[in-house]
């Protein structure tokens, strides 16, 4: 959209592109004509006051909710209307604002469930545990351990995931998302509920993930995190796009300052 940034976004086709996306819940226009693109290998953040439609937008992209109008393109393929698990299979993984781990499973098992889309063996091989499945299972276990190690929680692999501390649960969730080897990672408020040290750690992790070749789209309230790591920021207000620009320009944007510093119509 804006041309003032130093990245040549037009060089390659964007990994994810939204065109005129709408979502209505009855009379409520939760997402109103949103268009933006996420360039391959970038970190893009979606910000906005509470109720601006950020999580709804994520749910539309991941296929948890059907769009009312508009198109969502992922790797050149239209994905609106596809089933969630099919979209995940195309290479998109996400984490949640409210952590959703699997009750009764160890951290390692949770991450191994994330490997599901990487599994090559079919239904019956999986059911009867043919040697091929065992081999794949070993590889999957090794990769899951590697990811837990990357997130510095390898020593907690055998602990029941839902009994871990909050920050650690978030790390398990991130490992689970990465286990799918996604091209695009959607992070829904990765720093919510974390202290400043943990937030700094999350910032480091997200940039490392980007450097590993995973494109990141995040929703976040923590402005310092967003400003530090994002290549571009989209600002939502009442379901509509207010601005899209680099962090430096967003900080100068009068409209954005207005909704955040709160006039009488702010959330």
């Amino acid at each position, binding site marked *: 959209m804006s041309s003032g940034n130093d990245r040549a976004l037009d060089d390659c086709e964007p990994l994810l592109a939204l065109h005129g996306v709408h979502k209505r819940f009855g009379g409520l226009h939760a997402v109103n004509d949103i268009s933006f693109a996420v360039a391959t290998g970038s970190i893009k953040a979606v910000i906005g006051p509470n109720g601006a439609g950020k999580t709804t937008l994520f749910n539309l992209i991941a296929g948890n909710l059907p769009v009312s109008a508009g198109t969502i393109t992922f790797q050149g393929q239209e994905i609106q209307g596809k089933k969630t698990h099919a979209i*995940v299979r195309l290479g998109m993984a996400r984490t949640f604002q409210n952590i959703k781990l699997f009750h009764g499973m160890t951290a390692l098992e949770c991450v191994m469930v994330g490997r599901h889309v990487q599994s090559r063996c079919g239904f019956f091989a*999986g059911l009867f545990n043919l040697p091929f499945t065992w081999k794949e299972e070993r590889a999957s276990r090794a990769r899951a351990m590697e990811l837990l190690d990357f997130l510095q929680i390898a020593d907690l692999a055998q602990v029941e995931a839902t009994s871990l501390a909050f920050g650690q649960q978030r790390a398990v969730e991130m490992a689970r998302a990465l286990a799918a080897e996604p091209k695009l990672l959607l992070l829904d408020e990765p720093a919510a509920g974390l202290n400043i040290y943990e937030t700094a750690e999350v910032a480091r992790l997200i940039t490392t993930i980007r450097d590993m070749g995973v494109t990141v789209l995040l929703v976040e309230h923590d402005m310092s995190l967003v400003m530090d790591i994002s290549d571009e920021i989209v600002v939502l207000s009442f379901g509509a796009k207010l601005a899209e620009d680099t962090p430096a320009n967003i900080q100068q944007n009068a409209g954005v300052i207005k909704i955040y510093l709160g006039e009488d119509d702010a959330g």
Partner: protein
Amino acid sequence: MTIPCIPYDLDLFFQYLFAGLTYGAMYAIVAIGFNIIYNTTGIINFAQGEFVMLGGMIAISLMTFLPLGYAIAAAVLITMAIGAVIEILFIRWLESPSVLRMIIITIGISILLRESALHIWGESIRSLPYFYGNEVTTFNLGSVHISPQVVWVIAACAVMMAGLSLFFKATPIGREMRACAANRTAALLCGINTRNMVTLSFMLSAGIGALAGCVMSPITYTQYDSGTSLAIKGFTVAILGGLGNSLAAVAAGILLGIIEAFSVTVVPLAFQDAIAIAILLLILFVRPYGIFGSSEAARLKDF
């Protein structure tokens, strides 16, 4: 309240104990069938008893041209296929149905299966032959006489428990079913087709029910409507152990079996079924989350 007294005759005591264990193991298997579907879908499949009946009936029919072992294996596979078809026809296409609606649907399915069985097999009471020996064969443990079929029932229950826990613990599909049970949204976002997992849980429950129907058939006999009372007992046991907890279901099943067996020393035999219903009501009033369950875990479920 009368406390069931231990018979003075110790041999009689063990005889009752083994009868209790046998029936308890059967109830446990039916209860596990309830639990598997409950865990992946949050619904109680009231047609579970009919799966047990179908397994027995199909095996009995196949016995005319197949040896016993093959007939049982084929009956289990056919019942699994029926379970899958039922799920695909009646459950799969529903978008987030309410619990009440699901209960009514599964009760409808159970009536449908029962009436179909009546048309196919008639009202006659049938049974599979004893797997080893016949109804008078016993082997003696001290002075206690035990039918070999009792050993088959208990062994089938034990093997099934071991097989299921291995399946859920050590295979990718088992792990994905657990993931689907624990958090369906998150499972979807891991790329798991949760609808297929529901179909699979119906197949698994149907197969377990059918196997139970085969091993118990020589002892309890099989009739088109024998599923109903088993479903009530199985449901009681599933509730008693705490819905969704299969290990507790085994303990609860054996508990109910033993209570029933010893109840004949204090109340007439005809009241045996009333005991299970009384326990079910009592548990639903006092501890609806089961004797081994916690109220906290129960609150996380829909039902």
